[in-house]
C-alpha cells in the first residue's frame, strides 16, 4: 500500500459515502458527529469499513480505532494527521 496525503474532508466524504452504501442510509442523513454505533456500525460492519478505508488512505488501520475515535469527524481528523 502506498501512503498518500489525504485531507480531513476527503476522508470524511469517503466515510459518509461508504457508510451510506453499506447501511443504505441517505448521505444527507449521516451526521459526522454521531457515533458509529448510532449510525449502525457493529464490529462486523466496522471490519468491512476499515478494510476498505485501508486502501483509501494507504496504510493499515486497526478496527479498534473506530471505538477509540467513534465518530466520522474524529477518526477523519486522526487519520488525516497520520497521512502528513
Amino acid at each position, binding site marked *: 500500500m502506498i501512503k498518500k496525503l489525504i485531507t480531513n474532508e476527503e476522508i470524511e466524504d469517503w466515510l459518509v459515502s461508504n457508510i451510506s452504501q*453499506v*447501511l*443504505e*442510509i441517505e448521505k444527507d442523513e449521516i451526521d459526522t458527529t454521531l457515533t458509529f*454505533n*448510532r449510525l*449502525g*456500525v*457493529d*464490529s*462486523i*460492519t466496522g*471490519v*468491512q469499513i*476499515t*478494510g*476498505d478505508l*485501508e486502501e483509501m488512505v494507504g496504510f*493499515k*488501520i*486497526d*478496527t479498534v480505532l473506530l471505538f477509540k475515535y467513534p465518530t466520522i469527524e474524529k477518526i477523519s481528523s486522526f487519520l488525516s494527521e497520520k497521512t502528513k
Partner: protein
Amino acid sequence: MNKQQSVKAAQSIHGGKHVIVENKMLQNSQKMHAIYITNVIPTLGFIGAIIFSIYYGFGLFEVVILVLMYFISVTGMEVGYHRFFTHASFKSNSFITSFLAITGSFCAMGPVIYWVANHRRHHRHSDKDGDPHSPHKSGSFLKGLWHSHIGWQYEDNAPNTAYFAKELLKNPLVFQLNKYYLVWLVLGLLIPTVIGFFIVGGWVGALSGFLWGGLARIFIVNQVTFSVTSLCHIYGKKEYDTNEESRNLAILAIPTFGQSWHNNHHAFPNSAYIGLKWWQIDIGGMIITVLKFLGLAWDIQKPKKRIK
C-alpha cells in the same frame, strides 16, 4: 492487519455486497465464543450440576429453577430472536423488544443481530451452498450431523450483518441490546444464582441455582435448539414441497416451543404461528397469542395460501 486478514474475500456476493465477512479476528472471536461460551462451559456446567445433585439432591427447587429459566430462555430464543427479530412475524413495543433480546441472549448463542443474520442466511440458502448449517453438504451422514448440530459454529465465517439485518443495525434500541449481549448472558446466570441464594439459602442454594438454572439450562436449551438445525433437516414428515430438506418432527415440538414443525416454518417463514394443525403444539405461538390479548403484540403474520 494484512490484506488477507482484512476483508476482501467473500464466498458469494449478492447485489454488490458480501454475504459473509472473512476476517481472521472476527472468525477467531466467533470461534472462541462458540467453543467456550456456547458449548464447553455449559457442557461442563451440566456435568457439574449432575455431580452436585448426587451430593445435594435434585428436589423441587432444582426442577422449578430449571423449568422457569428454560421457559424464559426459549421464549427469548424462539419467540424473540427467531420469530420477532429474524422473521418480523409480529410487532411489539420497546419493553417486549428489550425483554426478548435480553432473554434470547441468555442462551449463549451470540448477540441478536449476529444470530438473525445467520438465520436469514440459512433461509436464503437452505440445504444448498451457502447454508451455514445444512446436514446434507458434508459428504457423509455423521459428518453432516456433527456439522449441522455444532461443527458449523466453529468453522463458519461471520455473516455480513449490514447485508442481512441492516434494519436492526439502524434501530438504536436493538443496536444497544445487541452490544450488551455479554451483560445479558451474565444476567441470565446471576438471576437463578440469586434466587437460589435467597430461596434455598446460602452458597449451596446459590450454586444449585447457578448450575441448574444457569449452565445446565444453557446446555439443554442449546442441544434442543441445535436439534432443529440438525435433526429437523433429516428426520420427520415433509408436509410441504419446500425446496429444501426441512421436516416436521413431532417429538421435539414441546421443548422447541413449536419450532420442530420445521417444514411448516420453511413453508411459511414469516408466520408467527408454526403449529398449523390443532394438534401441532406450538408454545411459541401460544405465547404470541397471550401477548396479543395483553395488547403487547400486533400485526401478527399468519400463513399465506400455499400450493401443497
